[in-house]
């Protein structure tokens, strides 16, 4: 069974080695670890069917550069009729939409992003004038969203460890005309604890299986290579993020994977090591509570306050969001 065409064979061969193939009622091949998620993903058949579809393109309106009226009139002049979503300032462009080819993109009016990518910022809810840290900020979707929510006031430290990815971050901060952001270059888990922040966002590097799609010929269109040490990195990141919070401050840990080992297990690790409290929040789109068990492993009981977002329920990338409070 070959998953991909020439040019991508080595990566996909590696994926095949790790694959556990599961044949469902539609003869669809689901690789590991996604097959294990049957244990908790609601309406599994709908999930598998949805994996065959292309994800729609969404974009966020940048209200710092223009009013909604100006943005819509510019989009309209290009023949673009976006659909509203349940998320404020987020619109659906349609399955074939090319947001980057529009005048609105080059004028900095829009930022293409997944619907679910807006959720960590909604959960964090930064306020104007606050001091906020985005520990893994590149390419800048969430940092620029926070700048917008904060009215371009206060200060955002947008950090990333990879110089290559910083280029995209710098470009997006500039394109959207943001003045309150300072871009820094540290390994997130080593970010100096010399100051404390009102809010911290950790959108952690992850295996990215929330983006996973099956092609029309059962090709794997998106499957990251195995990153053995991801949970270790994620645990170090969440701990450092918590240490950078001021007492009374709030942080959000998010990933675009559905893997409990990169989600609830990481959050449980923090709650074991630090005196953090998970907070409940109500997302604007369909969600499921976090897990307290997976494959016989138990997680912290408050993990039900985490929020899980499944692709077939929201028609976007699968996501995980945990909101954590540091008591005074």
């Amino acid at each position, binding site marked *: 069974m070959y998953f991909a065409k020439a040019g991508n064979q080595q990566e996909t061969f590696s994926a095949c080695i790790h694959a556990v193939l599961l044949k469902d009622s539609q003869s669809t091949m689901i690789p590991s670890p996604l097959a294990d998620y049957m244990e908790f993903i609601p309406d599994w058949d709908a999930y598998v069917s949805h994996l065959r579809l292309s994800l729609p393109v969404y974009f966020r309106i940048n209200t*710092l*550069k*223009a009013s909604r009226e*100006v943005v819509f*009139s*510019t989009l309209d002049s290009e023949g673009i009729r976006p659909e509203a979503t349940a998320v404020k300032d987020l619109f659906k462009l349609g399955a074939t939409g090319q947001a*980057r*080819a529009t*005048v609105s*993109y*080059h*004028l*900095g009016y829009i930022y293409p992003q997944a619907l679910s990518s807006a959720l960590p910022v909604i959960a964090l809810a930064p306020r104007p*004038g606050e*001091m906020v840290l985005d520990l893994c900020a590149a390419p800048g979707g969430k940092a620029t969203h926070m700048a917008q929510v904060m009215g*371009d*006031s*206060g*200060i955002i*430290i947008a950090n990333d460890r990879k110089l290559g990815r*910083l280029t995209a971050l*710098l470009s997006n*901060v*500039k*394109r959207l*005309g*943001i*003045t*309150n*952001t*300072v*871009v*820094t*270059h*540290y390994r997130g888990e080593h970010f*100096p604890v*010399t*100051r404390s922040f009102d809010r911290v966002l950790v959108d952690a590097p992850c295996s990215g299986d929330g983006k996973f799609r099956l092609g029309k010929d059962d090709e794997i269109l998106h499957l990251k290579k195995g990153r053995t040490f991801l949970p270790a990195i994620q645990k170090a990141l969440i701990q450092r993020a918590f240490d950078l919070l001021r007492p009374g401050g709030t942080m959000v840990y998010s990933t675009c994977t559905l893997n409990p080992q990169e989600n609830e297990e990481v959050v449980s690790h923090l709650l074991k090591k630090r005196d953090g409290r998970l907070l409940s929040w109500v997302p604007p789109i369909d969600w499921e509570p976090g897990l307290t068990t997976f494959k016989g492993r138990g997680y912290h009981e408050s993990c039900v306050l985490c929020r899980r977002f499944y692709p077939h329920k929201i028609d976007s990338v699968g996501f995980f969001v945990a909101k954590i409070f540091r008591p005074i």
Partner: protein
Amino acid sequence: MISSRVIYLVRKGRVAESAGLKVIRCGLPFVRRAGIYLKPTTVMVQRFGDLADKNVVDLEPFDIRRLLHGGEIVIDLETDSGYVIVRSGRNTWGVALYLLPGRLLPRFPKGMRQAFE
């Protein structure tokens, strides 16, 4: 904040709290030295250009397209030679260089020009 050729616009107030960090960039590029002129950056005029009431030129969409394709426009403006803000309708596109007598030369970023070629 001033680097060798670029002046950055930063938020007053809490920016000092980033002191001591390994900073790659702070704020928005505002103007840069370009020959004998100070050239406002495209991103700055796109953000704040609607507040300008001097050194602004309003163009028709076909003139914008011409500038994006690298062409120049013959136009008589009531200003000295130097950079002007280019608007069309309610959109601020960027800057162009006005040279007496009556030449308007495009100064849009390369990425923007390539996107509309």
